[in-house]
């Protein structure tokens, strides 16, 4: 039986099939590698773990999350408010970009990692108000240094949670699965 299979594979058509299979595998692999790219370089290797470790609440630095659509990146004034009182700021290599940025009054250029596509209208406020915790979507920041996103924010991720939250409440489910709730 196995011999027959091998014989068949040696046929021209078999060879084509093998070729197609190999190509498919190769492209899948290439896609996978591409998919799991490294996180982009950030201006400061910001240690979330340290800050969360000090007991700083997420909303302290990202207050927009409770009030509006965007959580926001803290102003450098906010960073500096603490850091200019910390001696380490003067010497730490890690903090040099911050110091330089504050002194030269040029903003740091952060690369956002938690993004939704541009055709999705996301509002943090509604989610926080609905009792969602930051880590439900952004992962446990007490274990991360430079922010990385634990999952791709695709529609399946959103919808799975929306379905769960709506439960048996039909009206809510209609609202939370309506295309127009996020796409306009």
């Amino acid at each position: 039986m196995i011999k027959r299979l091998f014989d068949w594979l040696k046929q021209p058509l078999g060879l084509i099939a093998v070729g197609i299979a190999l190509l498919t595998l190769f492209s899948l692999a290439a896609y996978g590698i591409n998919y799991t790219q490294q996180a982009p370089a950030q201006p400061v290797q910001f240690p979330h773990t340290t800050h969360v470790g000090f007991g700083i609440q997420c909303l302290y630095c990202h207050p927009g999350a409770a009030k509006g659509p965007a959580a926001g990146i803290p102003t450098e004034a906010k960073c500096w408010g603490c850091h200019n009182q910390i001696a380490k700021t003067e010497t730490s290599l890690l903090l040099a970009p911050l110091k330089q940025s504050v002194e030269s009054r040029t903003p740091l250029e952060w690369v956002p990692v938690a993004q939704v596509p541009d055709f999705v209208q996301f509002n943090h406020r509604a989610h926080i108000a609905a009792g969602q915790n930051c880590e439900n979507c952004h992962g446990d920041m007490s274990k991360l240094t430079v922010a990385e996103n634990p999952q791709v924010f695709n529609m399946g991720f959103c919808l799975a949670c929306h379905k769960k939250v709506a439960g048996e409440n039909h009206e809510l489910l209609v609202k939370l699965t309506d295309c127009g709730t996020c796409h306009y």
Partner: protein
Amino acid sequence: MADNISREEHSGQVSLLAVFPDLMPAADALDQLRALGISDDQMNVISGIPVTEAMLGRPSQWTNVPRLAAGGSILGFCAGAFLVFVTPYLYPVPIQVGTQAFVPGPPTVVVLFELTMLGMLLSTFLGVFLDSYFPNYRPMEYVKEVSDGKIAIFFICPEESKEKFTKAMTALGAEKVEVAEVEHL
């Protein structure tokens, strides 16, 4: 259709191919072979046009194609039914378009029809492949004369009586009788 007979199982046997110029001698040869003790499933006829079994007095060929077609159409129908009756409800809340029902009436018929036909035709096609062991490149040549209108009879006989069969076939008008490399009938 004769079962697959591999050479290992039939050591001591030989496959012979007799080429006849026309249908009548071929039919006679088949009768002769049966008389010589070759059963119907040990012989086969190769022709360049579809020759009906009755013309050569051969038993009816068993084919699965119609059954496969029927099965395929059922599968296609099921796929269509899945599409029209199930998929609208797979999204958490079925999507409303206009004021049409989630499972619309007449369009259902269209989808069911198309997928049934698709299933049926695809399985018919694949049925030919399955039943005929396609693709299969084992016997690299077949008898070239067959496509010129000759009839070839292929049969398996004991190695020792090869001469006897060759003679008998030649007597009945075979243009040539030779050993053939054939994997299955």
